[in-house]
């Protein structure tokens, strides 16, 4: 491998973009070739053109069914992003709060760590039924599901970051007369911000990937609901469209969080 012989140099800006565009083009070409080879009927593997047509059709509110089954793909994306936004926000708040406590108070960590790990291991679909029984079929179970999915990575990352803060910083701040609260807000949190943000990045990713599960119950107005509905009627092109939309927007959100992380901790990666 090239990396073992020479030190890997990061690609320059334009070069990186070109390489990525080329990779997407190659992927599309392979996809089109597989379709042209007709290994599977078009109902099983529709081509890129069919998916593109679906994008145009589902984005058009005036096509007789208001996009796809009542709402356009953009409206659906908005609905799903709102759910992911609320779910991730609550999850992050809960995760940072619990993570701080876990990192600062060993007793709390000892008690809550198994529970957090337990929650992490649960597939969202498994606890969705319970959330539906408890919270009904409206927005609550969906947002709570995404919250439960999003909070463990933040809690774990925050706890690890807080425990990992250089003891000398804490002691120095305490020696200078800072109260415990002040030490946490001015030393511990800023020092652990990069790792917490990594946790948040993971959490938003997990929340977004759980949106299809969250929308299995009365979520027909979301993008996940569209995928499920299309799958019921074997509309594979719409399923693919939904997956691509989720994937691409997920990529954009991730890049945005990464940009925030760079802005908040510019020293990272330079040490």
């Amino acid at each position, binding site marked *: *491998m090239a990396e073992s012989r020479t030190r890997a140099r990061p690609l320059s800006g334009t070069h990186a973009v070109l390489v990525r565009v080329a990779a997407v083009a190659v992927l599309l070409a*392979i996809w089109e070739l*597989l379709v042209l080879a007709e*290994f*599977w*009927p*078009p*109902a*099983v593997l529709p081509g890129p053109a069919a998916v593109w047509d679906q994008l145009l059709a589902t984005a058009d509110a005036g096509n*007789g*069914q208001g996009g*796809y*089954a009542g709402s356009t793909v953009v409206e659906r994306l908005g609905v799903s992003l709102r759910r992911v936004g609320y779910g991730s926000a609550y999850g992050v708040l809960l995760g940072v709060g619990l993570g701080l406590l876990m990192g600062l108070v060993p007793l709390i960590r000892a008690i809550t760590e198994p529970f957090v790990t337990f929650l992490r291991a649960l597939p969202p679909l498994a606890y969705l*039924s319970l959330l*539906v*029984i408890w919270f*009904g*079929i*409206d927005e609550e179970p969906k947002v709570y599901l995404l919250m439960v999915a999003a909070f463990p990575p933040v809690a774990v990352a925050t706890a690890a970051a807080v425990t990992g803060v250089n003891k000398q910083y804490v002691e120095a701040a305490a020696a200078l007369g800072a109260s415990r609260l002040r030490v946490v807000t001015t030393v511990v949190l800023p020092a652990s911000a990069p790792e917490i943000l990594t946790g948040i990045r993971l959490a938003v990713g997990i929340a977004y990937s759980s949106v299809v599960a969250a929308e299995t*119950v*009365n979520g*027909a107005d979301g993008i996940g*609901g569209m995928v499920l*509905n299309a*799958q*019921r*009627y*074997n*509309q594979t092109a719409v399923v693919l469209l939904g997956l691509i939309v989720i994937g691409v927007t997920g990529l954009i959100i991730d890049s945005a969080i990464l940009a925030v992380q760079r802005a908040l901790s510019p020293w990272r990666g330079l040490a």
Partner: protein
Amino acid sequence: MSVSRRSVLSLFAAAPLLAACGVGGSSSSGSGERTKVRIAYQSFADSTLLLKDQRTLENALPDHDIAWTAFDSGASINTAFLGGAIDIAVIGSSPAAAALCPPLSIPYQVIELLNVIGDSEALVVRKASGVTDIKGLAGRKVAAPFSSTAHYSLLAALEQGGVDPASVTLVDLEPQNIQAAWQRGDIDGAYVWTPVLSVLQKDGLTLTDSAKLAKAGKPTLTFTVARKEFIDRNGVVIDKWLAATDAALKQINTDPKPVAEAVARQLGASVEDALSQLTQNIYLDHAQQRTPEYFGTPEAPGKLAEQLRSAAEFLKAQKKVEAVPDLATFQAALRVPRG
């Protein structure tokens, strides 16, 4: 890199081969000359479960490998047909109609009618909602599992009652979630099947059911379908299947208890539940199916093709199929059970 470009490319060429690779399932190979019969069934009470329970087909065809696979919806059965993984299947009229339309156009034929859905599927409203007739549903929240026969019946009932479906909030929920939402008061009504239906009826008012809709010309049906190519090659299997189901259909009408016991064993339900589920549907033996109401005869096709086509037009209006083929296509997709 030690892997050459050519070998990477050949990997892509091998994709279909890779798709055929095992993933740790129980797909047996090396059965030699033995013909495989792959049957898809669904977890609801019907006569085919008696065949499965009594191993009727296995005993009648000792030199065939018979594999029964459970599916939870007609759509997933259609997917399995597209992948060529299934030969014979139990499927509702809605997904069967969808399969006969483009883009799916699955080459299968309806070989018999397993039942006409009766009052095992019904439209109920919560007594507390104050709704007393279908007209009262305007502006209310009504649930049904989308793409199912119940969904079709719900829209047919609304149409019949002169209610614009757009004025009703339709909610897509699976039966068990309908029960949860009902108990919490999140929905005003639901079109659903037993056993959830029986629970809802305890504090609900039944507005209409599939038996009444069937009388009014909007029946929902359960079929056996078989791959066209399989029928052509394995006439014996189809004949044995039809003989066995015909006997089972007759038995449900004369002595349903043993059938209910078999169904209960297969579904893990109680015998009483199985019996009540069974008796809520309408069963016709093959002679009755050859009447003009249903299959008719090859010379004089019955109404079934038109009913399938009307189910397909309903799907077209929902933009779930691209086009509805002409009546001849539906007639060609019906294979009259020859008794």
